[in-house]
């Protein structure tokens, strides 16, 4: 955020200071608006936060409380922390978590490498046909991915790749158009002097990319890694179609795993499982917020 503030103020360096003091003089009129702003914010926080609180409440309640209706859950005298243990053991949580982690790492590392390489080429190298290729990158960002998954699945099934991690390896190697775009934007901003010096020293393009550009691109690399990691971590359709039920990701396992013998969901275990499943993402997000936000910013402004 501070980064953004700096950017906008540096663009209008002479205007920033006097205007800010002027704003202070308009206070009386904005008092009423301020009240509305605070009311709106509190209401919005309630709306956006309630599902999180409620899932925690359900995860800590007994089956009896659940059948007594919503208000019985607010009796906090008998918190069922054991639900988390049950959710952990009812399905092979560790096993599914390992698969999820492995797939997310495979995809995010490969796609970050491949996308940064392509993004570097689009930003720093020149070749005939480059413009056309970049237009294809932008156009493929618009291709509906979920619709694409079905024919891809049919082909992968024919090739015998269902139940293996190969689809994620291949998708990773192919790079992600959105991330290629992100890297291209990032590499375009790096001053020219750096690579000129390297070229004079006789460094090859791959060394320039690896030793000069990648170390400078740490924020972009982190953004790309975090985004692709959370995509894969939370993805449901691809593992549901391409992996077997006993070796799938947490997405599929928590969605279908906590059932009683009658085949209906065990609500409190689903809630506990969901909490354990989303907690890593929330924690990761809280520590790395600015990278998530930075990527959203880049996509919107330049799109």
């Amino acid at each position, binding site marked *: 955020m501070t980064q953004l503030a700096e950017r906008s103020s540096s663009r209008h360096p002479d205007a920033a200071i006097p205007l800010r003091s002027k704003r202070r003089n308009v206070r009386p009129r904005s008092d009423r608006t301020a009240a509305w702003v605070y009311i709106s914010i509190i209401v919005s926080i309630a709306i956006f936060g309630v599902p999180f609180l409620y899932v925690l409440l359900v995860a800590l309640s007994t089956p009896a409380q*659940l059948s007594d209706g*919503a208000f019985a859950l607010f009796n906090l005298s008998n918190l069922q922390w054991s639900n988390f243990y049950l959710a952990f053991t009812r399905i092979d949580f560790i096993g599914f978590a390992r698969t999820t982690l492995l797939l997310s790492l495979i995809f995010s590392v490969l796609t970050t490498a491949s996308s940064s390489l392509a993004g570097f080429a689009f930003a720093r190298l020149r*070749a005939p046909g480059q413009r056309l290729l970049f237009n294809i990158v932008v156009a493929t960002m618009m291709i509906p991915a*979920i619709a694409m998954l079905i024919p*891809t699945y049919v*082909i992968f099934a024919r090739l015998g790749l269902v139940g293996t991690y190969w689809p994620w390896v291949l998708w990773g190697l192919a790079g992600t158009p959105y991330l290629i775009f992100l890297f291209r934007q990032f590499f375009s901003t790096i001053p020219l002097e750096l690579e000129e010096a390297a070229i004079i020293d006789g460094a090859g393009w791959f060394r320039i990319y690896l030793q000069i550009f990648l170390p400078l691109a740490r924020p972009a690399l982190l953004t790309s890694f975090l985004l692709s990691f959370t995509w894969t971590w939370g993805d449901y359709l691809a593992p549901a179609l391409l992996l077997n039920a006993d070796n799938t990701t947490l997405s599929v396992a928590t969605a279908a795993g906590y059932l009683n013998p009658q085949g209906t969901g065990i609500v409190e275990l689903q809630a506990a499982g969901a909490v354990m499943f989303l907690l890593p993402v929330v924690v990761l997000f809280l520590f790395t917020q600015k990278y998530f936000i930075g990527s959203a910013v880049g996509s919107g402004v330049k799109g």
Partner: protein
Amino acid sequence: MTSSALTPAAAAGVTTRGRGWRRYPARTFYTFVSPWILGFLLLTLVPIGFALVVSFTNYDGASSFWRFVGFRNYVELFTSSPSAWQSLLRTLAYTIIVVPLSVAGGLFLAVLVNRRLRARGVVRAIFFIPSVIPIVATAIMWRLIFNRDAGLLNGVLSVFGVRETIWLADPYAFYALIVVTLWGLGGGMVISLAALQDVPTELEEAARLDGASTWQVMRAVVIPMISPVLYFQMITGIIASLQVVVQPLLLAQTRTVASSQEVPTSSTLYMVEVYNEFFFESRFGFGSAMLWVFFIAILAITLILQWLSRRFVFYQVDSDQK
């Protein structure tokens, strides 16, 4: 961006200096982008082409006894497939409701968070987190809210004497789906927020000095200035909502993708219908035809929006933007 004028010079520096393959920057370029090119050919073009071929067959996904049936799948889709058309209309209704509300809601939250607030980062995170957490977790959380017996919504409504409602069945499943989708509008908020912070303050201040109200400043200055960003959100939002399939499946608590027929009719969107044709009915030919109609519809909508944007979107001429 800025590099386009400068980099050829650097590339030229190499052509005169380098030895071996380095003499050819074009070859270097193609080496660097080759993983993506291969991926694009094999993982995008091949599946699309495959779907096109399959759409002219009666392939069922398993048996080897299939043959070309010409345009029969398309004819069936356009003439005698009411459920597909109903799902398409439903999807359009869903998109028309969800996209403007998401963009407007995201902008509203962005305006709120753009002010000087205590704990602004925390507030922003609360609005943003729903859009980054796994979709399965989202679905489970909302299934709890909408749960018949233990659900918060029925609990609150019972205070007002409203009878227990099964929210995730017909006819309410459609509205439940919309609520769940709108919960994730924080992604748009972040984009709008960045755009708001790029609006030059002197423009707003000038309008204020001329006596414009908050709303007038918003309507006449801020929204036109950030319209490219709102337009971008609309396009990506439309493409995303037209292909929604996971939320209806998970809200209906289907156990596998193949049980898509368990999804209530009112939340059976077009792509749910497609999944149904593929994985429940095993009609790969017909399903592929549905996919291709969908691809063409997306393309047409994107082109129409592109054309409209030339009239309504204000593109700022800026030194560092194309």
